[in-house]
C-alpha cells in the first residue's frame, strides 16, 4: 500500500479543531480554508482582486490562484514554502535585503505547526552553502544526501 506524502499545508499555524474543514474560493476571490462555522481559518490574502478567480494544481505540486480571464497568477503555494523542496523551486537569500525563502520543519511528525528547524542558503566569503538551523543557531551543515548535498558540501 502506498502512503501519501504531505508536501504543503495551508493552515499550518491555524489548526482546525475537527475534520470538518472546507477549501473554497471566497467572495473576495481568495483561496480560503473555512471551519465548520464557516469562519475563515486561512486565506491566500491577496488584496484588491478585480475579477473572477479559479484555482489549479500543477503536476509538480504547486497550488495556484489565477485570474480566470487573463490566466495571471495572483498567488501560488510555492511562495510560502513548507518543509519540502520541490523541483525547480528556489531556496534563496537576498544579499541586499536579507529576505530569504527557506524550509521550515513541522513541530512533530504529526503536527505541521511551525517547528524549530529551518533550512536556508548562506553566503560566506563568496561560497554558497546550505545550512540547517535549530532556532537561531546553525545546527548542521549537510555532509552528503544523495546528489544534492554531495555537491553543496
Amino acid at each position: 500500500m502506498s502512503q501519501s506524502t504531505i508536501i504543503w499545508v495551508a493552515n499550518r499555524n491555524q489548526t482546525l479543531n475537527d475534520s470538518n474543514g472546507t477549501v473554497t474560493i471566497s467572495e473576495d476571490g481568495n483561496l480560503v480554508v473555512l471551519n465548520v462555522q464557516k469562519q475563515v481559518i486561512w486565506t491566500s490574502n491577496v488584496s484588491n482582486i478585480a475579477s473572477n478567480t479559479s484555482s489549479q494544481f500543477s503536476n509538480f505540486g504547486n497550488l495556484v490562484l489565477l485570474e480566470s480571464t487573463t490566466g495571471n497568477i495572483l498567488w501560488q503555494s510555492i511562495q510560502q514554502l513548507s518543509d519540502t523542496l520541490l523541483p525547480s523551486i528556489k531556496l534563496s537569500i537576498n544579499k541586499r535585503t536579507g529576505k530569504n525563502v527557506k524550509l521550515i520543519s513541522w513541530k512533530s511528525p504529526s503536527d505541521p505547526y511551525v517547528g524549530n528547524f529551518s533550512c536556508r542558503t548562506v553566503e560566506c566569503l563568496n561560497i554558497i552553502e546550505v545550512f540547517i538551523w535549530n532556532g537561531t543557531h546553525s545546527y548542521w551543515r549537510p555532509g552528503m544526501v544523495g546528489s544534492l548535498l554531495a555537491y553543496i558540501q
Partner: protein
Amino acid sequence: MTVAYFFGFRVGDGGQGNIDMYYTLQNDEEFLICHLTSQGNLDETRWDDEKKEMKVTGTSRESECDVYGLCGAFASCNSLRSPICSC
C-alpha cells in the same frame, strides 16, 4: 546566472541580489523531493515507480558528528568512540 551545476542541482547568483539554490529533474520518469524533518534532518525522497510510493533515498545526518560544532572548537568528533568527543 548559474555558477555551478551538478546532477541537476544549481547554486548561483539569480540577479537582483538573490542567491538561489534549486534543482531540476533530469527526465520524466524521475521525481524527487527534499524534506526537512521535525528532527532537523534533510531527507531526499524519490518516487519508486515499481512500488508506486515515495522512498527515502538519502538523509543528511549519517552520524551524530554531523551536528555542527557538537564537540566545540578544540575537540574532534568520532561517532565510533564513547564519548564521541575527544581532545
